[in-house]
Every structure is written in C-alpha cells, then in structure tokens.
C-alpha cells in the first residue's frame, strides 16, 4: 500500500531554492498528521551535499540522483529519474513546487505516473486519511478543493504561500541510479541567458510594486523602481501597460500573466480590471494609489490613497528612507 509523504526538492546551479524548504515544511506537517515519514528526491549534478539542508526542514530520507546528465534541468531526464524512484517506493503523497521548473516537472510526472494532481495549491489538509488540496481556479476568482483518487496523490504548491518551519530530522541519504540511456533524451538546453542581475522574480517576491495605465509611459517606471530598490521589491505591470509596450510581458500580473501572492502589493495607477484583480488579490496586504476614487482596486485594498501617483510615490520613497 502506498505510504509516505514525498517531495521533489528543487535546486538550480547547485543551490536549493527557498521553495524547496516551503514544500519540505508542508510535507512534514502532513506526515505528522498521518504518522508517516518525509522523503525528498534530489536530482542534479554535484548536489549530494545539499541533503543536510533539507533535513533541517523535516526530511527523514533523501534519495539522490547525482549525475552529469542532470547538470541542466530537462523535462525528460528529470521526470524519468523521479518517476523511477517514486515507482520503486510507492509513496502516498508527492509534492512539488509550482515554480516554472516544478510546474513542468510535476505535469510530466503526472503523465508518467498516470496519477491525478492538484496544481498550484495554497493549502493542504488531511481528511479521512486522504489529502485535500485547496487551489485557486479562474486565477483566484474561485477556489476548488481537490481530492486525488489515484496514487501518489500529487500536488504542486504555490511558492511564497507555505511557511518554512525548521524541524531537524535525520535526512539519511540513499543514492540511486536513474539509469537513463543517453539516447533516450530528446531535449537539451543549448543556452542559458541570464536576465539583468538583481532582478527579483515576481512570483517569489515578498513585495511587488505594480504600475498600470496611470503610469502614462515607460519612463515613469523609474519612480517605482526607485521605491522597489529601497524595499527589495519586484516591479510588476498591468496588462494595459504591457500591451502598450511599456513593460516586458514577463512583468505582467493578472489572469493572462503571473498570479502572485506577495506580503505586500502596491498598485499604482491600476484601476483594477477583473483579470488583474484575479492575479493579485491573494496578496497579504494590498495598497492602492489612484486618482479615481471609484477605481475597483480600492475595494480590494487594505490601504488606499486617492491622489496623483506622481506626487505620492516619491513621497512614499522619501518616507520609507526616513523610517527604514
């Protein structure tokens, strides 16, 4: 019978990503309720030394596939390795991050393992011995509770939502050979082009400052970037701003962009179209700055300022400089 709560830890360039500790902590919580162990799968090249870091967040066992063929993440190599060790061990629950890599890997695994998965979950609980996964649908306009009837019960977890909890366990390492013939791999990474250094990824940012149509043009985003630099925030944009060519598509927040849940979301000159609100209304705190007091964004905001953003934002930057 399927037993145990498993996670796939995510590493990039030989370093574990924070979301790995989030899913380890979430797995520990489920495992404690079930009276079962937490195991992590770690795939990469030169990554065996990362196991103790996972143990800190409640991982009992770490299954490691360390091989030069895993130097770059590819869907086919990583999913073949994880599927092999999961099939051999028959866990009850399998959790991954709903990061870019985790979304890709988890969906391929759902195919390889012929099981169901709840994607991009924001809460997990155990009811009657089964996992119940809570997930936003329609970009957060509705929530669904999902039960997976097949095994392993898979879920991917939205980054930045599950708390990291230290809870040291053994983290005993078992190495496994993924035994992937090189000619079985059909894809390869030809090139990795790094974005401008220091840019914070929207889906992982604690604070996001977004600008919309009210920004009036691309140059004015300097105002937001200055405040963002001070707060360690990422800069986002509404669809209107992206469609106008003011900001790159990767900065778009909303139903056809990124769905984000930072601790603080500051919306500047964003009226709050339904499709934008859907992408950010799970933020813990929302600030709206807009000239139009009737703008729908104010209905979602914890704090609102009805005024010209070009006057207010520089003053916020000045005020933050004083108190931080």
């Amino acid at each position, binding site marked *: 019978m399927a037993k145990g709560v498993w996670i796939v830890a995510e590493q990039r360039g030989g370093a574990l990503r924070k979301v790995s500790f989030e899913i380890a902590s979430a797995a520990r919580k489920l495992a404690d309720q079930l009276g079962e162990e937490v195991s992590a799968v770690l795939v990469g090249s030169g990554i065996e030394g990362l196991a103790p870091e996972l143990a800190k967040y409640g991982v009992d066992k770490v299954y490691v596939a360390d091989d030069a063929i895993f130097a770059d993440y590819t869907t086919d190599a990583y999913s073949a390795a994880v599927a092999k060790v999961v099939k051999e061990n028959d866990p009850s629950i399998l959790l991954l991050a709903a990061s870019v890599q985790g979304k890709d890997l988890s969906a391929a695994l759902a*195919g390889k393992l012929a099981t169901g998965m709840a994607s991009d979950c924001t809460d997990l609980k155990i009811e009657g011995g089964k996992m119940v996964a809570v997930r936003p649908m329609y970009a957060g306009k*509705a929530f669904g509770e999902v039960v997976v009837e097949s095994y392993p019960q898979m879920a991917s977890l939205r980054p930045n939502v599950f708390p990291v909890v230290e809870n040291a366990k053994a983290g005993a390492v078992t190495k496994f050979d993924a035994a992937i013939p090189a000619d079985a791999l059909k894809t390869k990474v030809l090139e990795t082009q790094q974005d401008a250094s220091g840019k914070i990824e929207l889906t992982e940012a604690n604070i996001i400052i977004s600008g919309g149509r009210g920004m009036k043009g691309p140059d004015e985003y300097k105002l937001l970037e200055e405040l963002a630099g001070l707060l360690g925030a990422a800069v986002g944009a509404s669809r209107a701003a992206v469609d106008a060519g003011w900001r790159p598509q990767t900065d778009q927040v909303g139903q056809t962009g990124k769905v984000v849940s930072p601790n603080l979301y500051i919306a500047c000159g964003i009226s709050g179209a339904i499709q934008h609100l859907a992408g950010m209304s799970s933020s813990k*705190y929302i600030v709206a700055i807009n000239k139009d007091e009737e703008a729908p964004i104010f209905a979602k905001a914890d704090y609102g300022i009805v005024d010209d953003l070009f006057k207010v934002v520089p003053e916020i930057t000045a005020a933050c400089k004083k108190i931080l």
Partner: protein
Amino acid sequence: MNIVACVKQVPDTEALIKVKADGSGIEEGGIKWVMNPYDEYGVEEALKLKEKNGGEVTIVSLGPARAMESIRTALAMGAEKGVHITIDKADEYNTAAALAAAIKEINPDIIFCGQRAIDDDSAQVGSILAELLGIPQITIVTKLEVADGKVKAVKPIEGAQLVIESSMPCVITAQKGLNEPRYASLPGIMKAKKKPVDVKDAAALGISVEPKAKIVKMTPPPERAPGKIIAGDDPAVKAAELAKLLREEAKVI
C-alpha cells in the same frame, strides 16, 4: 508538415465567476465563452508554421457542444479541419488521454497547446499529452524555430531564459509573447463553416470518465476585510502615514 493545435473554450477574462450555492461548480449563465488565450498563441504558431512549410493544421478540442465555437474560430483563422471530442467535463489526465487517442490517428510532426487554460489553471494537459504519446515536450515557449526535423525554443524561467532544442515530433505549450494571434477575417469565417469537423464521443475513444483528480467542492474566494482610505490633501503627509502603517500595523516593510 502535419500540425495539431489543441484548443479549449473558457470564460472570457473579464467574466465574473460565480460559484454555485452547492459548491458543485460555477454558474454558467451569462458567461461569454472564448478560445483560451494561450491556445490562440498555439493556433497562430501552427498557422505560421504551415504557411512557411506547407501542410495542414488540425484543431483538436475536448468539451461540451459549445466548444465547437472555438474550433470554428480556429478554422476561421486558417486551420484546415477539426476534431471535437464531446464530453461535459473531464479532469486533466482524462482530457490528455482523450486528446492523445484522437491525435495518434493524426500522427502529427508537432503539437501545440496553450501553456495553461485560464479556467482550471492547471497547466498539466500539454505535458501529460506528451507523456502519453511518448514524445518530448517544451513548455511555456515564447519563441520557436523549426528546421531540419528539430525545434529550438526559448523558455523564460525565474531570472533567465533557456534555449532548448528538441527532436520532433514534440509538444510545445505556448506562452504570451510567442506571436500576435490574427483575427479571423470575414471570408475566413464564411469558409470555416464548410470545413470538416470530426465529432467523436469521448467514451467511444475508450476514455475513462472516472476522474483521478476530483474537485469535491468549489468556494468563492475569501472576502477581504474593508480597507482604510488615508484621507488628506498633502501627498507627503499621506505617504508618511502609509509608510507608518506598513511598518507598524501591517509589519510588511
């Protein structure tokens, strides 16, 4: 070149989504249905590829009777024919299994899907489809080149862009930025009415209707408590008050 583009019909992004009182689903009355925006990028890329290399584009969709509208839209954009797998509802795995069964018969060189559908937001079907067909996949693609039986794709990840090469056939899931989808022309719309669409019942494809992932309950999103408007005339005073609230009350800066 033999090309498949998968499409799903979804509520328009501006649609208000209302959960039924019994939590069994959403109220469908009054919803404007459109082709999933990410699938439009897939259809456009399929058409561009056909225009460059010759061949034909087959649109495959799974859904209730109304899904035919999205198939006709794609045919009006320029695709040659369609397959409509009729079923009211299916989970991600069964959807992919049904698409795989229909697509096997077409034996395409390349398959396009949207990177996710904006209703369920699962981002699973394209990947599972690739696995069930036993072919490689590249997800969330913003640029594509096809040459010499291989594809080269650009995929943005957190903080970087990857250039990935894959053999063909393969599944590509389309992300915004891949292209600008064309509008269907009036002559296109007229022609689309006569283009062939093969309607297949999901059960006849041998697809299980027992979901592996079951939505047991839907709820509206949690209500947010009413907020505070920081009043006053002086932007500097209001900004200082906001900074203080964020620091001392919300404790987020």
